[in-house]
């Protein structure tokens, strides 16, 4: 802020002295037509070359705060890395800078960008880069084709301001993008963007694995699913949970938050939304002019948007693709935690996201611990109960309630349930295959529908049931993954039921 004030002061002095100010000043009103690339060349670079600050998501480099064109050197390294795409699920990502999405690049309109693309010696593939900010063949792709252990260089002038996607364009281009090869480059308009309190970098992508959603182990890329545009995961910042728990975005009441949102694709268009917030401003498609008061903004594959909101009350904003099965069944969920004093005049205080969060709100650590222990043949009852509790809170507690009480006349209780106690095997079948119609539990009649939960794997079902059997006054007992597998095998159902 201090620096910004100094710049304004200097500019004021210059004006007072009667000199012609060469560069537009901060806060200058943006003309309806800025002139595009034809008006984007501000002459040769001035001063010493600058090494661009690159940041990993969700961080954004500081504003350039420059008013003259510069030569900016960008060094970006391609690395093929194995990381977790979800808890216990490994995937080999191809990355710009070691992360998905790749490093955030920030320059100013009129800058001359000397781009160095390095392909790490451990890479298996050749790679290149197409920056949508480049005016030139292939966006630089044709000039940056780089074998493993080598580097390429090309230079471009950033003639258009905006928030641009960059991505790899090597054959097969869809696969390179599906493996995470995309990121954002912000070309600031000459007057810069207004200063805000917080800036974050969020980018969506769709992923295609051979195994189903959350199937553990190393998962290879599935070309057929990619061609069918049927993703296994839809994610913000390259992994499920990248913006959850300790990694949630942070803000305080009374701040202005700006998100630089990209969509790498390769296939899906995002309906970008933050539950519990309204975007005060959206620079649609990452362009020059903003729309105001927006609930959900479309972010096309290979496109972007800049969204901004002011925070009034504490709470957790939930970042989603509002194509909701992507959010709750394929991983497109993030959080922004807003801290500060309550303001009951604005909102009564009950959190907006308790149901939406689903099983993402609780720690998945016990689930992973149980999966590991089970694989090693050393699963204890206690581990099962802990893992089952975490899963129950996410999947089951919405209807059966966190303490198993159910809801009178609607959802049957699981606590001290005579129905459950009578036949564990029957309960197992209900979890897997669902249940509808009249049923009597503890003397009360219910007539409702439970959908099949066959998306849960054998471990998960076993742990949930073991948790229920050992909670709230139930008689105890234990269900193993093998029990679940037996019941699952004996009850055929359509492929993909409840997915």
């Amino acid at each position, binding site marked *: 802020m201090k620096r910004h004030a100094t710049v304004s002061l200097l500019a004021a002095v210059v004006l007072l002295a009667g000199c012609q100010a060469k560069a537009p000043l901060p806060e200058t009103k943006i003309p309806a037509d800025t002139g595009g690339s034809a008006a984007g060349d501000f002459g040769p670079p001035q001063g010493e070359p600058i090494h661009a600050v690159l940041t990993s998501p969700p961080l954004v480099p500081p504003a350039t705060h420059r008013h003259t064109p510069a030569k900016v050197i960008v060094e970006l390294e391609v690395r093929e890395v194995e990381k977790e795409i979800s808890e216990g699920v490994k995937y080999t990502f191809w990355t710009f800078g070691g992360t998905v999405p790749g490093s955030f690049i920030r320059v100013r309109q009129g800058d001359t960008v000397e781009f160095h693309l390095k392909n790490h010696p451990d890479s298996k593939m050749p790679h290149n880069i197409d920056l949508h900010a480049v005016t030139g063949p292939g966006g630089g792709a044709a000039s940056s084709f780089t074998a*493993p252990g080598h580097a390429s260089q090309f230079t471009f002038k950033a003639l258009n301001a905006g928030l641009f996607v960059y991505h790899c364009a090597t*054959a097969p281009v869809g696969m390179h993008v599906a493996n995470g090869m995309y990121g954002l480059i912000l070309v600031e308009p000459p007057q810069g963007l207004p200063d805000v309190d917080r800036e974050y970098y969020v980018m969506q992508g769709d992923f295609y694995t051979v195994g189903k959603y959350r199937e553990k182990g190393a998962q290879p*890329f599935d070309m057929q699913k990619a061609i069918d545009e049927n993703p296994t995961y839809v994610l913000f910042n390259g992994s499920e949970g990248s913006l959850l728990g300790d990694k949630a975005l942070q803000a305080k009441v009374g701040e202005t938050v700006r998100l630089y949102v990209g969509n790498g694709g390769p296939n899906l268009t995002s309906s970008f939304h933050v539950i519990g917030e309204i975007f005060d401003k959206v620079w649609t498609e990452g362009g020059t002019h903003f729309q105001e008061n927006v609930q959900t903004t479309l972010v096309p594959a290979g496109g972007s948007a800049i969204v901004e909101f002011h925070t009034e009350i504490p709470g957790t904003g939930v970042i989603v693709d509002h194509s909701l099965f992507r959010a709750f069944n394929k991983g497109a969920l993030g959080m922004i935690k807003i801290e500060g004093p309550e303001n009951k005049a604005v909102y009564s205080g009950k959190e907006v996201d308790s149901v939406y969060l689903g099983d993402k709100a609780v720690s998945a650590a016990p689930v992973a611990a149980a999966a590991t222990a089970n694989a090693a043949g050393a699963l204890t009852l206690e581990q099962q109960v802990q893992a089952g509790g975490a899963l129950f809170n996410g999947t089951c507690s919405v209807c059966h309630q966190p303490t198993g009480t159910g809801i009178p006349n609607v959802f049957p209780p699981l606590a001290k349930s005579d129905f459950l106690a009578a036949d564990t095997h029957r309960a197992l079948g209900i979890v897997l295959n669902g249940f509808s119609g009249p049923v009597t539990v503890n003397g009360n009649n219910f007539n409702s529908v439970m959908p099949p939960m066959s998306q849960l794997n054998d471990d998960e079902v076993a742990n949930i049931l073991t948790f229920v059997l050992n909670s709230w006054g139930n008689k105890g007992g234990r269900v193993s993954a093998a029990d679940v597998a037996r019941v699952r095998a004996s009850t055929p159902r359509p492929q993909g039921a409840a997915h």
Partner: protein
Amino acid sequence: MRRFAPALLLLLAVVARADGGYVRIPAGEYKSVIRYEDGNGKRQVPAFAMMKRPVTNGEFLAFVRRHPEWRRDRVPSIFAERGHYLAHWSAPLQPGATALPQQAVTEVSWFAATAFCEAQNARLPTWAEWEYTSAADATRRDARADPQWREAILGWYARPANAPMSPVGKSPANVYGVQDLHGLIWEWTQDYAAMLVSGDNRTQSDPDLAKFCGAGALSMDDRENYAVLMRVAMLSSLEAVNSTSSLGFRCARDLP
């Protein structure tokens, strides 16, 4: 003398195997993933011989010992990149623990691979020979339309290159008796430099003829075959002095 004749034959057979272990690949016709300007899309491949397995560190070490001009500390930089060529060996004549004798040699330039093959009266296979032979699986000469064949190859692409490489000869032989064409390393071909495919995947339907000298321009004929496309992309990113940690070679020979 006469009674030693069978033993001599046996000895000759052993020598033949030790000579890199070539197998005969019968002549045939196939459809390349690359669209050539001449022909109707079918490529004729005359019969030739190809090494059963990729060249190993052990074999390449023997070559470097006999031809010290190809030691990494003596090779002229116009033939191999210093800092890349055999850089993973612990010393110029000592592959060491990171390059075991039975593992495929990598980090070799096209020039070095060509010299190795010439030293055994052979040459690098052409792309057509390589593609033709690699189209096979254990039972069919052309398994490329089989989704499982493609998945298996794509599966290798999904594994990081810094994982330890398995020794050569561990994969099932294809119908010709050749191993490791897929799933282990990339391989140089004799005419890789003529594979002038654009580095930008999306221009291939409209190749830049001026840039690629007219008739030399190639484009992809079978875009669905990603598994092979990626190998073409890899080769076309290279210059003859280049080498990478997952790029090796095998030799081929004309039949007499």
